[in-house]
């Protein structure tokens, strides 16, 4: 091994973020097999570019950005897959009916709103960071996030108190 330190650093970074990178790919692709391909391609690419990467704190957003780009590349000709039937057994769920309805609602979000929400909830990124990653303005990201939650809330939340729309 020529660069054991680099390999260890790569494995550690991947270990920290792998679950959420996979979930991000899964929700972008909406299909387990495509998600696995996207994650494989992304991390292969990340490892190739690894020695050139200096900024430790930027690694997480860099990895998520690669997954997003790889998804766009892989989705460029193939139509977006419908929901995957063969998902692994989920963990214990106190309210499976509601989770299913929420998953359906998440799938129906417009792509840009869904992507911003995924980066915020799974990646833990701020609006400014998401804006930088997607090449969008911070205002546009804020609009997408608000619209995503409004749509989810309309479908699943309490009927009263429609937020952000009515002058309270």
């Amino acid at each position: 091994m020529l660069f054991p330190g680099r390999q260890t650093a790569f494995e550690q970074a991947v270990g920290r973020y792998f679950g959420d990178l996979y979930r991000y790919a899964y929700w972008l692709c909406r299909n387990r097999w495509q998600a696995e391909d996207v994650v494989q391609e992304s991390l292969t690419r990340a490892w190739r570019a690894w020695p050139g990467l200096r900024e430790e704190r930027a690694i997480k957003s860099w990895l998520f950005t690669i997954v997003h780009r790889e998804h766009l590349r892989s989705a460029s000709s193939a139509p977006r897959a419908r929901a995957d039937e063969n998902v692994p057994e989920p963990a214990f769920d106190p309210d499976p009916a509601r989770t299913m309805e929420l998953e359906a609602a998440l799938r129906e979000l417009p792509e840009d709103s869904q992507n911003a929400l995924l980066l915020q909830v799974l990646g833990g990124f701020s609006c400014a960071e998401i804006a930088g990653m997607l090449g969008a303005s911070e205002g546009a990201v804020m609009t997408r996030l608000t619209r995503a939650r409004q749509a989810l809330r309309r479908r699943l939340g309490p009927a009263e108190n429609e937020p952000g729309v009515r002058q309270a």
Partner: protein
Amino acid sequence: MNCLDLRRAAMLDPRRLDTEALAHVERCDACRDFLAQALELEAQIEHALRTPVPHGLEARVVRNALESPRFTRRHALAAGLALATAAGVALLWKRNDPLALAGIDFVVFEEAQAIADAKPADVKVLARVVREMGVSLPAQLGEIRYVGTCPFDGLTAHHVLVKTPLGKVTLLLIPSRPLASRAVASAHGFEAAVVPAAVGSVAIIASTPRSIARAETLLKSG
């Protein structure tokens, strides 16, 4: 902060409210209820998004990534040793050709957006361009996943993304860019070569030199 501001902030990110928003919630019952509902929905959203990760996937993906060929290590080291004995360390690293490097930058920074923004392109136009440039795109090159035109290095390039047995290959056909000789670059985990055609030139960008060599051979096979 008023109730509307609070609700806007909660719809943006209910888990990261600032102190002003939290102070408002302390003294406003309606917003306290609203925030409680928003946080409950947020927990459900997170639960739904936390899809289980398939067993063993991480180990498999990391192993494959680490085992993928890397020009920068083995090849560069071998080339470096040979050169160092013959010509000295000063000649060890060949400079990246700017046009080839621009091809890599295109793939890393612009390709995804170009594909996302593009309208469906006419494959007949591509066939004509290919013919006029005196190159070929044989079926054995791989499955063409995307065809479009895009600005590249101040000119118009015909952008083709091919899924080959050796991984994805990006081709930029630039009829209006004549080139005297082949040039290469290596950056961001990609390799690129720009090769002269009968008319214009073609930039080939891929993950490995082997993948480039295969595409180049097939392009010239016509």
